């Protein structure tokens, strides 16, 4: 799943502290030259040489590192992606002051120091701007170690697929079912009228249905299940939203799916070329959202 980043070139670049250093160096040189003071020259050359040598150390500090992205939880567009990044030292050396940022958009990153032979996990946070299924994340690894007056930088690509669901917007009310169905219920659900036993809790499920009494008895987390009849079945149809822009349609569908999952009705969805029969639950919910994230309108080719 997690794939290695490809090796890439290391750049040594000036940063916003470099002009200050240059000003001090020029001042030292001028003082040495105008006063004929050899000691001032010597100091100027010393600082200059330390800066030059520090570039080599900055370069070595970024060598021999591998970055991998862990599982990236899906978010809605406009929210913040939390990307767990494992930094690993290949050569077993120590690396200091590492900073990882996404190459596009504003992102925050914590600094990491890597003591051999451990790997360290940092969390990269960046805004998810567009919906979609992404297979890689371009990032920038940088460090100002050892002196801070220059920065070593390396561009990497984290290979990890993740979803960004469309932003849930749109003010249209939930479409009512054309005819109330009176079909017998096909199975157990997390909502309903009659208690139907428990099963083990899965990550991502609502905490409201956890059997807390059982949890207090030191049992593993369990989800209470209910049987009963659904009052109604909701149908969301891509085609029914025709007057809207394609992206607005996706957003509206996303919002409906969320609302429906919060409610008690079973819901189904029809996209161009894809149909989801009415159901409820975690798996169904995410399957719908993934489809919405990945969706490309066959009629409008240039929508991404």
């Amino acid at each position, binding site marked *: 799943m997690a794939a290695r980043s490809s090796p890439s070139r290391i750049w040594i670049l000036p940063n*916003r*502290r470099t002009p*200050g*250093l240059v000003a*001090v160096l020029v*001042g*030292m040189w*001028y*003082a040495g*030259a*105008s*006063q*004929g*003071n*050899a*000691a*001032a*020259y*010597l*100091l*100027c*050359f*010393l*600082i*200059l*040489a*330390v800066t*030059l*040598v*520090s*570039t*080599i*150390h900055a*370069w*070595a500090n970024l*060598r021999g590192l591998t970055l*991998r992205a*862990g599982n990236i939880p899906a978010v809605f567009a406009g929210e913040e992606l939390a990307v767990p990044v*494992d930094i*690993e030292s290949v*050569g*077993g*050396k*120590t690396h*200091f*002051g590492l900073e990882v940022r996404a190459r596009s958009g504003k992102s925050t990153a914590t*600094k990491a*120091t890597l*003591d*051999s*032979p451990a*790997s360290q*996990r940092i969390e990269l946070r960046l805004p998810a701007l567009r919906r979609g299924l992404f297979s890689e994340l371009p990032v920038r690894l940088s*460090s*100002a*170690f*050892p*002196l*801070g*007056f220059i920065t070593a930088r390396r561009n990497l690509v984290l290979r990890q697929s993740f979803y960004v669901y469309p932003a849930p917007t749109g003010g249209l009310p939930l479409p009512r079912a054309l005819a109330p169905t009176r079909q017998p219920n096909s199975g157990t659900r997390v909502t309903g009228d009659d208690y139907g036993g428990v099963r083990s809790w899965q990550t991502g499920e609502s905490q409201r249905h956890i059997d807390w009494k059982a949890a207090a008895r030191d049992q593993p987390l369990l989800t209470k299940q209910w049987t009963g009849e659904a009052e109604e079945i909701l149908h969301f149809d891509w085609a029914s939203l025709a007057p809207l822009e394609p992206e607005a349609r996706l957003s509206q569908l996303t919002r409906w799916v969320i609302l429906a999952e919060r409610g008690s009705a079973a819901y189904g969805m029809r996209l161009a070329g894809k149909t989801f029969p009415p159901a409820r639950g975690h798996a169904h919910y995410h399957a719908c959202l993934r489809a919405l994230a990945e969706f490309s309108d066959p009629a409008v080719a240039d929508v991404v």
Partner: protein
Amino acid sequence: MTARPRPRPTSEIETIPLLGVIAGLALAALPLAPRLAAWVLPLFLACAGARLWMNRPGARLPSLPVKIFLFALGIGGVGLTYGSMLGIDPGLSTLLVLVSLKLIEANGERDFHVLALLGYFLALCDLFFYQDLLASIYVAAIVGLITATLVRFHRGAGPRSYWRATIFALTLLAQTLPIVILLFLIFPRAYGGFRFHFSQSLLGVAGMSERLSPGSVSSLALSDEIVFRAEFPDGNMPPLSTMYWRGGVLWRGDGLRWEARSDLNLERRPGQLTGPAVLQRISVLPHGARWMFALDRPSSDVPRASYQPGGYLQSRRTITTKFRYDVVSRPTNRETALPPDQRVAASQPPREISPRVRALVDGWKKEAAEPREIADSALQFFRRERFSYTLSPGSYPDDNALDHFLFDRREGFCEHYAAAFASLMRIAGIPARVIIGYHGGEYNALGKYVIVRQADAHAWCEVWIKDSGWQRVDPTEMIAPERIASGLASYLESRATQFDPDAPERSLTATGWRQLQRELQRDLRLVWDGINYQWDSRVLNFDEDTQRNFLLSLGLGAESWAELLIWVIVAIAPFLAGLALWLRHAKSIARDEIARAYERFCRTLERAGLRREPWEGPQHFGARAAAHFAPQADPIREITARYIELRYGRGASDAAAFAQAVRHLPKLGGYERNMK
């Protein structure tokens, strides 16, 4: 809705690097104290303390109004103290006030680097006020401290992080040495043409002045500050007691007060000088005036110097940095013609001549007609009458000081005797002048050079003798011959023991011990001065001319500065490339044995087909490995347990035993093979 004031920020700089950079700034600022307004350094220290106090948890940094108030207070204070913001002292005080303000508001990464750069810059300022080896070492230590603090800042907190950062910084500095040397040798130096030049010396040296008045030389007599050092590259060194270092000639005399005059026609070259040529290489320390020194009397051309009437050298520019020159001197003068303006200047008698003085001189003239004999009579007078040679002759009245000195007080230092003698000669009608400079010095046998200090300051006379020219007469020799023979220090010392009432009671061993101690001290001082001198003459004297000669010897003399810069880059590139290559293969210093052994263990398992996942802790991995390689489960469990104990436990396990266990890990059999 009311706008809430923005909350004041809390400190973002770790305390330890902050402490380091403050220490660097304080060390750099301390030597500047004599040139700062008295309140500036306390202000700096108060700001440093306040900033550290703000680093306590929950504390906040000062708000903008407070900063503006402090800024106005500091700048206004400098203006009030000096009455002006221009000049070196107000400039330095302003600089330090700004550093203090920056310190108190510094927050975040960028400000931290600004503070470090200010530390480097203050260290540079130190180099203008102190120029000996000790100052260079001190500044190097400050640079080391600040660099280590920067490394520590980027390294982050950790066990012994500062110590490791210091080691790293020292390594870094050591790796720069070849580049520094290359840059120092080849980097094109600027040839003058700078508008801004300190008009006075920053070193605050008291030295000779162009006036001789009672007390002007004796005030220097206790200063052991070095004026210049002289080498004799030919090996031809005259005895110390005959070394009269000519510094200047005073023509205008009035009793005990003498001064230089600049209205005489310039001499092109000194007249006929004969005798053995003595080549000297003289390194003058900056003294803020134009004095240059050479043994009596300089006879060769010296670049950047002019000959002054009276045959002494003067620098064309104020000497504010170390300056070295070669000069040849010849001891004997054979001039026969005295230029008319000099004759007039050298014959001007004192304005006031008391009857007693007139009678004294008339008496000598009656006895002898020859100037040489008259001079001898005067010297005899000094010897016969009870004149005493003393460092504290007291002050003489401005009126009739000569009479008072010759007949009443009869106490004086060399300037009194030289001035009185020259005045007497002029009254007798013999052209005379006073020479100021230094006499003797201390010979450093280790470095084979002579150290001349302020304490060696001296004044003597020259009288014009027809057919033989200007002849040196040193009246001090008559009064205190030992002073001339062995120097002032030992003269004073011998007089002190002479008058010490306890001297006979002291046991012999005690005096012997003291003597030994004194000699040891003297030797150590000479060794230190020797190293200092080497640093001075080899490194600090490497100026644009020396560089030109050096480049000529390399065959690079004709290159323009742009070509030289290319040479600099060409010469530096291999060092950086070599360093990169070395770092590529070098193992990290921080990697310890335990980590290495565990890594080997992981590699072995990986080769056998079981990879440690990045998220996997040693315990989990150990359990998985033990299950995977069932026949080797025991050694794997042992290694894992030892590693966990060493790493995370109380260290009860033995690192060597752990390494051995890793080494003796049996060959790992695959899971599949075991199934057969």
